């Protein structure tokens, strides 16, 4: 029983990380039709900024804020500097984001080396707590709590604010939003900032989960972020939330009860099976 509890909590913690990556990715694709392969780079930027802050005496909460802030600024700069000039050229846009996705890890390697750097985890988050006989690391709870807060914040933003209304409408019909006199480019920048913030938060929290940061962490998590986005339904935050739980749990249980590494394969097989049955994903709609 304790093994099942531990696997469940670890799976949910991993799913929480996937959700933080996937929620922004999903909104960005849903609204802007941009397949943002640089999203993993934003995660890495957040992770390294948080690591740098935590290693330089910021304290973990401040380091977390710093990492998230730096990732958000990087996302806005990316949207304004690279994505926006290429809106009418989707192929070049994809190539540009792939380029950033490759360049940022290379840059991080050049500055801090290719080896993983130990993340200074504060003592209060390094311990465990007991649930039904299982000693569960506290950081799993932090990850799950952060993902739930982000989910709640996104739901409130999408459902209760005018900007959220514009985003939801833009996911359905961008041209019509423009024809109502709304500058949809502002919504693009806002969504990119939100997505970047969530990815950078994921990066900052990934240091807790894995105990270290490395330049390729973002790229690895991005793959599962895309899986969650496709499974949840493009543009659907609720779908991403549901899919990340399924992916995290299946991955953990398959890895434990079969062979380590088979969890990744199980996730891909599950994605393929789902797309055969429901091509639009679990929900296929926003929020």
């Amino acid at each position: 029983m304790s093994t099942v509890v531990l696997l469940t909590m670890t799976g949910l913690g991993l799913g929480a990380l996937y959700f933080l990556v996937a929620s922004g990715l999903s909104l960005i694709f849903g609204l802007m039709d941009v397949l943002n392969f640089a999203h993993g780079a934003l995660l890495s930027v957040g992770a390294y900024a948080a690591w740098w802050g935590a290693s330089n005496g910021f304290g973990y909460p401040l380091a977390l804020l710093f990492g998230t802030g730096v990732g958000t600024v990087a996302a806005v700069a990316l949207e304004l500097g690279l994505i926006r000039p290429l809106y009418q050229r989707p192929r070049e846009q994809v190539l540009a984001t792939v380029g950033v996705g490759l360049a940022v890890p290379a840059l991080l390697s050049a500055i801090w080396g290719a080896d993983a750097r130990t993340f200074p985890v504060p003592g209060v988050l390094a311990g465990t707590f007991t649930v039904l006989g299982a000693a569960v690391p506290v950081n799993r709870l932090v990850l799950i709590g952060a993902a739930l807060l982000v989910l709640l914040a996104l739901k409130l933003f999408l459902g209760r604010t005018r900007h959220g209304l514009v985003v939801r409408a833009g996911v359905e019909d961008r041209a019509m939003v423009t024809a109502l006199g709304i500058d949809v480019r502002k919504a693009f920048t806002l969504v990119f900032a939100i997505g970047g913030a969530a990815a950078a938060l994921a990066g900052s929290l990934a240091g807790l989960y894995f105990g270290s940061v490395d330049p390729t962490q973002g790229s690895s998590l991005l793959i599962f972020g895309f899986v969650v986005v496709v499974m949840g339904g493009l543009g659907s935050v609720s779908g991403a939330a549901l899919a990340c739980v399924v992916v995290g749990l299946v991955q953990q249980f398959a890895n434990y009860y079969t062979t380590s590494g088979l969890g990744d394969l199980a996730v891909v097989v599950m994605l393929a099976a789902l797309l055969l049955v429901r091509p639009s994903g679990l929900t296929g709609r926003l929020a």
Partner: protein
Amino acid sequence: MTTSAPLLAVRGLKVVIGGRHILHGVDLDVAPSGVTALLGRNGAGKTTTVRGVLGLLPRTGSVRYDGDETAGMTTHQLVRRGIGYVPEDRGIFAGLTVAENLRLAERDPDPAYDLVHELFPELKQRARQAAGTLSGGQQQMVAIGRALLNRSNRLIIADEPTKGLAPRIVTEVAFALERAAQAVPVLLVEQNLALVRRLAEHCVVLADGRTAHAGPAADLLADAEASRSLLGVGRRATTPLGPKGGDH
């Protein structure tokens, strides 16, 4: 062409889509009051003209709105200068509620919900219903309601607002457009010549992506031969409209 200074003046409008020339040079004036009808057979370029004017399609040529050239403006900048747009496909956001669809169109500090709900009481009753679950007629009411919501609008562009609607709804839409036209000029793209006869003072006819005729609507519709050659219909094709609230 109209005699007073037009609110919207289009000259030599050309649109190329996928290497294919859709518009070859459309000239069009919208009078500063009343209804100007944009007519033509299917595929003549009416919707492309509207979308080109609004900047929803890349185009060349001159589009002057309220005296200003719009070439450097984006669609949202042009619309914010006072245009209400009812697109051919209604442009409803299916996943949003009726109230959210209307709220999205708000630009004025005091939106004209009183007018919209007076014309279409159903929209108030169905405010919380997802727009995608409405009937075609109800969706058209939302689309027209959005265009009428801003009192600061100076032009309404309605692209085939009665297309595919039941006769009773056509009558309601006609009444709404008639009310709108009392306050702001309307550019009406329409195939329903009974509606054109009832509402429009001026008309412009397109054929093969060019302006083929411009003048008083009544004159064109009274001329059976011209109607037949330009629009492909005779006068018998113009079925009458019922009064608002009629039981057609």
